[in-house]
Every structure is written in C-alpha cells, then in structure tokens.
C-alpha cells in the first residue's frame, strides 16, 4: 500500500488550493465557450477570453502575495486506484503544489497571456477564425497553468502534452498556408521525440520509487546516500527495506526527463522546430515560443532538479552551452525579423538549461523570468513592425516582397518612435547591458558557469572551461546580431516603402493603443529595478532569493549531492569571478554591438541593403541554414524513413495486395466453378430426383385409376412376377 499520510492542512491552505484551481480552469472555460459559441458572441467573444485571463491574473497575484516567501501549499486528492496482482491496491493522488516558483510562474503566464490577448485584439482583427484563435489561447493558458500547478509527474506529463497540442493548433492557425501546416507538424513531431524520453524517465522513477508525487519523490531521493557507483536509500515510501539503486540508471532517468526539456525548450539537437514555428501569428510566437511554453522545459528541470545526478547535470550543461552558441551563431546570419528573435530564443533557452546544468539553479530561473518579459516585448514589437509593413504592403498591393525581411525595413526610428523606444530596452536586456533585467540574470548564469568550471577543473582538467567560453562567446554574438538588426530596422531610410505615413496607423498615432500599451508595459519591465534594487548585483534580487535552491528544494539538492553547496562555497572564496564576469560580459556585449555597427556600415557602403539575396560566404551560409541541421535530419532520418515506408508501401502494394488480388481472382474462378457444379450437378441431381419422383407418382396415379378391375390386373401382375421368380430359380 502506498498510503500517503496527508499533511494537516489549514483551511487557509485549502482555500488557496481551490483558488489555484479556479485560476487553472478560468482560461479553459473561456476557451471552451469561445470554441463552441464564439461566433455568436459580440465581437466574437474576445472580451470573454481577456476577462477570464485578467481574472486569472488577479487571482494569481493574490496567490502570489499569499504564498511568496511565506509558505508552500501542497494539497492532494485521491485520483484513481489500480489493483495489482496480489490483492493490494495502488493509489494515485493528484494535487496542487504552490511554492515560490509555482506562484511566480502563475503570475508570469497569466500576465503575459493577458497582454498578448489584448495585443491580439488589434493584431488579429478581421481574421475569419478570430474566436478560434482566442479559444486556442485559452486552452494553451490552461495547459501551461496545469504544468505549473501539478504536484505529480503523471499529471504534469498530461498537461505537457496538452501544451504541445495547443502549440500545434496555434502554429498551424493559418492552415491555408502550407508552410504553417508543415511547421505545426514539425513542432509536434519534434516534441514527441523528446516526450518519449520524458516518459521513460517517468517510468524509471516510478519503478524505483513507486510514486509520481514530486514532493514524495524529492523527499525519497533526498534520503539517498551516495556510495560511489550506487545510491543507498533507506526505507522509503512503500518499501520495507533499504534499497540500492545504480548510479547509471538514476542518471538515465534524469536524462530521460531532460529529453522532455530538450524537445519542449528547443535544445540541441531538437531545436529546429522553433524557427519554423514562427509561421504562427506573431502574438503566439511571443506568448508560446518565447515567453512561456518553451520555458516549461526549464521549469521542469527546476522541479526535477533533485533527480539529476552530477553526470546528468554535466550533460545538461553541455547541451545548454552548445545550444546557446549555435542559436546565437544562426541568428547572426538571419534577415527575417522573427527568425532572428527565434534563434535568440533558442540561444537564451540554452543559457537557462546550461545554468541548470552548472548548478546555477536560481540564476537560471531568474533568467527565465526576465527573458519572459523582454522576449515577449521584442516579439510584440516585431508584431507591430510587421503589422506596419503589412499595412504598407497592402496599400501598395505588393504581394511579392517579404514584409518580415529586415533589409526591407529601415528608418523606423522616425516612423514608429514609440515602438523604437519600447524595442531598445528589451533588446538591451537581451544583450545584457547594465541597468536592464537581462544583465542581472545573464551575469548570474555566467558567474555560475565560471564557478562551476573552476570548481570542476580543480583536478586539472581544463576542458570544463569550454562551457563558460561558449557562454561568453554567445554574449558577444548576441550583442552583434541584436545591434545589427536594430540598425537595419530603425536607422537609415525606409527601403521598400518610401512614404512613412503608409506605415503608420494614421497621422497622429503610429499604431493602435491596444497594441502599444502591452508593449510599453513589457518594455518597462525590462528594466533591472523591478528585479533587484541594486541593478548591478544579482545577488540582491528578490526573485533570486525566492527561488534559490535552499528555499525551493528545502536544502535538499538531491542526487547531485554536495555539488551545489560546494560551488557556492567556491564562488564565495573566489570572489573575483563575480566582478570579472560582470566586466567581461559588459565588454563583450559592447564589442558585439560595435561589430554589429561595423557590419551595418559595411552593408550600407556596399549598397547591399537593397539586394535581398541569401548569404553567399561559407560560414554565414552555414549559419543562415542553421548549420544544415534540417538538411541533416532530412537526409539521415526523414529520407531513409520515407524510403523505408515507401519500400514498405511498395511491398504492400506489389506483393501483399498482389497476392491478395490473385488470391481473390482464384477464389472467384473457383467460386464460378463451384457455382457451375452446383447448378448442373447438385441442382441437376435434385431435378432428376424430382423427375423420377414425378414419373413414379404418375405411374402410381395411373395404377390408382379407380377401376377396381385394373387393380386386380396389377395385383395379378404381382403374381406373374412370383411365377417368373420361381422360373428363374
């Protein structure tokens, strides 16, 4: 029996859990109503979606102030029971877990969702599936909140899949476009690849610990004692005796869970779906593919942090670092504004994952929070820019030019000044300039990475420094590509559409207020003050303190054992690292921006701005094509599979179907033959019998003619027969 001794709950905790459930279902109700009846509501019901999300946001704020730094609420309910072979029953519970991280995520998800929906009112205006769009957003919000609130891995996995599903719906929202359909399919399938690993990880953990409950798992794992190759667990839940589990299997379990993160958070090697996902509407890209959904992987890593062994963390760090560098490199060669932001998202997610891997757990979460705001801001601004370009393209009846290509833009600083001033802080935050939020979080991650490498390489193996080098290289590249595309968009002259007023909503306003307000709010939130009173020191950040591993994990770092405390101690001793990181990162960012300026000047001088061609030089082509990862998958995985399935289909058609058809033909011929036999032999026999019976009957009737004398004749014939018999013998 797996009976969990339910902790005593105060009425207040219970009510908090119920409020949390309300937050969860509000977007679902709104989304469901919109999908079913959206067409009949006034304004197709966008107000309903926004009201529900707004209400959810305010409830989240209430929960936030009740829970943050005060208490952790864990309420469970019985979910279902399974009978095993031997009379015992396995009970499964479901529940809500509210701690600092959960309420923080609640606020972020509902807040950005709210802003994006307000933004979408104008941006998606006139779409013929307008209500569907808001319905899908509601379902997405619901799924994301479910991930955040779940207290067990099974439920989390269910919501995880729902998120993937709603993402699929939204990427393929414009399903009239082939590219959107393909992108949705691609995103869905790449997520599935990761989810298989995730599922296996869950299975492994359940096999060992007999529970899906994250809290129970964490407690069980915390009691483990590292014995080198094995972990010894004293009597944990549901088991009488201490068990010994292999280090390898636990590492594999952790890596399995990390697979889910790789899929969802677009880490190497599954990151290729994210740039394609930009086929979806821009607000969707902002909400899902920048701020929240892709962050779910990082959230999962944080929740499952205790389940990762030191080796698993090493793999995570390597994957994260590699992704950060590759994303940044790919972004340098892009000219599509959304593609640039998408690759930067990959790069930033790489940072977060790397942060998790190097044990900078809290820094990673801080970056998750700050990134959510500034990346949402960037995407929404990009949305305004694209909206403006569309507007102008529409006026010119221009259907051939790519409205998302930054080489077609230019001079928007004058044309769309408000957007410019909203864009710059977010971009600065992304680059990591001081005073902006990104600086804090990136600095924290970089410091963590350096500290981790320093601690690990104490044994003389300097290879560990590759990770921080990757990270610092990415900082340089980020500065370069962000500066470059900002110059392209906002400086110089408008290249494609010379009349500036065509790009604006009207003479007085550059865009609708509903577009600008969310952008403004997010831009303001890109400033560092909101996250730390001292904008140069991340250590004082209230977010960092709230989500530090000591608080979130309750001083139980899990399987990685003493790694986290050791790094903390190491950083404390080597205090120069922190300062050096700050200076170095600022320096690199500035150099990156300067290089971006040079690149822009060079392009202007060469007059290359007006010629829109794919890059020709070796490296930039490599980066532009995203290192030919897609082509690689196409060649190595997809094509062989297609050939295999084509072969299977051909086999099926040429062999199995042919055999079946031949068999069927034989059967038909046989059936005809049998039919013939039936008609002529069987039926013939029957008819013959009938004829014989008829003739016999006629004969009998002839004898029974009513003449008594002929009866006599016939009986005498019998007598004659007797004579003949006697004569014969």
């Amino acid at each position: 029996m797996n009976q969990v001794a339910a902790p005593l709950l105060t009425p207040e905790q219970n009510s908090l859990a119920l409020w949390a459930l309300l937050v969860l279902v509000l977007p679902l109700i709104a989304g469901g109503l919109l999908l079913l009846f959206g067409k009949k509501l006034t304004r197709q019901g966008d107000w309903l979606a926004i009201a529900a999300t707004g209400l959810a946001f305010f409830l989240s704020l209430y929960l936030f102030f009740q829970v943050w730094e005060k208490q952790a609420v864990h309420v469970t309910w019985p979910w279902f029971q399974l009978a095993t072979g031997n009379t015992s029953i396995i009970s499964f519970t479901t529940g809500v877990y509210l701690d600092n991280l959960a309420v923080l995520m609640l606020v972020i998800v509902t807040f950005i969702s709210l802003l994006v929906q307000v933004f979408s009112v104008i941006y998606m205006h006139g779409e013929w599936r307008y209500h569907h769009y808001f319905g899908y957003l509601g379902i997405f919000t619901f799924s994301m909140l479910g991930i955040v609130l779940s207290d067990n891995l099974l439920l989390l996995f269910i919501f995880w899949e729902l998120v993937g599903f709603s993402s699929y719906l939204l990427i393929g929202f414009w399903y009239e476009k082939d590219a959107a359909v393909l992108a949705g399919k691609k995103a869905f399938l790449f997520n599935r690849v990761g989810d298989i690993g995730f599922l296996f990880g869950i299975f492994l953990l359940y096999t060992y610990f007999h529970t899906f409950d994250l809290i129970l798992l964490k407690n069980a794992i915390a009691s483990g004692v590292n014995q080198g190759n094995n972990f010894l667990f004293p009597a944990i839940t549901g088991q009488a005796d201490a068990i010994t589990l292999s280090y390898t299997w636990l590492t594999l379990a952790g890596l399995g869970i990390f697979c889910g993160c790789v899929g969802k958070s677009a880490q190497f090697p599954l990151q290729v779906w994210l740039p394609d996902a930009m086929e979806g509407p821009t607000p969707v890209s902002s909400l899902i593919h920048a701020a929240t959904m892709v962050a779910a992987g990082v959230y999962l890593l944080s929740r499952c942090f205790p389940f990762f062994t030191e080796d698993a963390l090493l793999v995570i760090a390597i994957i994260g670092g590699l992704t950060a560098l590759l994303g940044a490199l790919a972004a340098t060669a892009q000219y599509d504004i959304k593609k640039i932001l998408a690759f930067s998202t990959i790069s930033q997610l790489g940072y977060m994952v790397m942060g998790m891997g190097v044990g900078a757990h809290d820094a990673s979460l801080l970056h998750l929070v700050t990134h959510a705001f500034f990346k949402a801001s960037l995407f929404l601004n990009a949305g305004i820019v694209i909206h403006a370009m569309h507007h102008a393209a529409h006026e010119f009846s221009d259907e051939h030019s790519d409205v998302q290509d930054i080489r077609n833009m230019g001079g928007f600083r004058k044309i769309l000044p408000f957007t410019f001033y909203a864009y710059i802080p977010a971009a600065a935050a992304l680059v990591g300039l001081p005073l902006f939020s990104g600086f804090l979080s990136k600095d924290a991650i970089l410091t963590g990475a350096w500290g981790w490498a320093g601690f690990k390489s104490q044994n003389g193996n300097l290879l560990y420094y590759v990770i921080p080098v990757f990270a610092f290289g990415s900082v340089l590249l980020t500065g370069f590509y962000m500066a470059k595309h900002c110059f392209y968009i906002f400086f110089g002259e408008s290249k494609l559409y010379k009349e500036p007023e065509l790009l604006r909503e009207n003479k007085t306003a550059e865009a609708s207020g509903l577009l600008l307000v969310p952008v403004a709010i997010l831009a303001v939130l890109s400033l560092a003050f909101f996250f730390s009173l001292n904008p140069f020191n991340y250590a004082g950040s209230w977010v960092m303190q709230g989500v530090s591993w000591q608080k979130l994990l309750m001083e139980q770092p899990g399987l990685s054992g003493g790694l986290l405390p050791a790094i903390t101690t190491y950083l404390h001793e080597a205090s120069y690292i922190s300062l050096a990181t700050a200076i170095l990162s600022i320096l690199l960012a500035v150099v990156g921006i300067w290089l971006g300026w040079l690149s822009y000047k060079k392009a202007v001088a060469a007059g290359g701005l007006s010629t829109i061609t794919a890059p020709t030089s070796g490296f930039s082509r490599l980066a532009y094509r995203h290192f030919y990862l897609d082509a690689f998958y196409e060649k190595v995985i997809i094509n062989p599979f297609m050939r295999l399935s084509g072969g299977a289909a051909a086999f099926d058609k040429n062999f199995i179907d042919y055999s079946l058809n031949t068999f069927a033909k034989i059967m038909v011929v046989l059936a005809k033959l049998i039919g013939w036999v039936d008609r002529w032999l069987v039926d013939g026999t029957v008819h013959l019998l009938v004829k014989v019976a008829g003739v016999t009957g006629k004969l009998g009737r002839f004898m029974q003619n009513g003449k008594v004398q002929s009866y006599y004749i016939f009986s005498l014939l019998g007598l004659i027969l007797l004579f003949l018999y006697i004569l014969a013998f």
Partner: protein
Amino acid sequence: MSLVLIFFYVFGFLAIASAAFMLATKNVLYAAFGLLVTLLSLAAIFILLFADFVAITQLMVYVGGVLVLILFGVMLSNQVQGRAVQSESVNGISGGLVASAIFGGLAYLILSADYLLPEGITVADAAPANTKSSIIAIGIRLITNFALPFEVASLILLIALMGAAYISTEDKHE
C-alpha cells in the same frame, strides 16, 4: 383308358366349355346358366374323385344357394323389361394377356413340379373298398381335429348372413 377317366375328361371338357360360354355370352342370364353347368360338372368330377360329401355340398350350396342368389340379384338389379340383361366386356386384351400368362405359369409349375406324394396312393386305391362314403370320416374330422375352424366357420356364416340382411335393408331415413 378306364371309364372313370373317360367320365373325367367328359365332365372336364363340359366344365371348361360352359365356363367359356359364360365368358363369351353377353346375356347375364345365359352366363348364370353357363355357370350352373360348370358347377354341376365339377360336382360330378368331385364324385369321380371319391369326394361324395363335397359333391353333395357343392350341389346344395352352389347350385341350390349361391346360384339362386345370383339369379335373384340379376332380377332385382335390372330396370329393363322385355329384353335380356346385357353385360359388355372391357379390358379384353390386357385381361387375356394376364390370364394366359397366369395359365402359362401355372401350367409350367404343375408340369414341372416334383410331387413328393406319399405312398398313400395305394391306400387311396383301396379306400373305396373300405368305405363307401367319406361322410363318416369328414364328420369325425370336423368334430375332432377341425372343431375350432368348424365353429369359426359357423360364426362367419352367421355374421355374413346378418351383415347381408342389414346391408340390403332399405334405409327408412332416406
């Protein structure tokens, strides 16, 4: 050829001839008379075969009873007056074929049969010397060996008479 044998052939010929006449004639009354001659001839043959009781019974029952009954029947079942009662023939060919086939078969059987007659022929030859009549022997047999058939025959006769009387009664209710 003894006298007895001559008488046998004479009476046999007479019986066949009168029977043929009975067949040939269309007049029913003539047929009845043909039958009369046949029955009488047979009675004579019975005497020749030392069956005097059977011969007397033949005369009494057939000639005196059955034939009279038949004549009554002929008279009672005729509407015609003033001309002879006629009877046509049918099935001449098939009847002739069947009858001749049966005769052929019977004749063949009779001629080809291997009679296992006991030595009693000699005894029979001596019989007339011992007893002038077979009446005593038949009487003894009828009340000893054949008592039960005798009684049953009487019953049958009684029932037949009763039945005949009942059947021929005019139905009052018609």
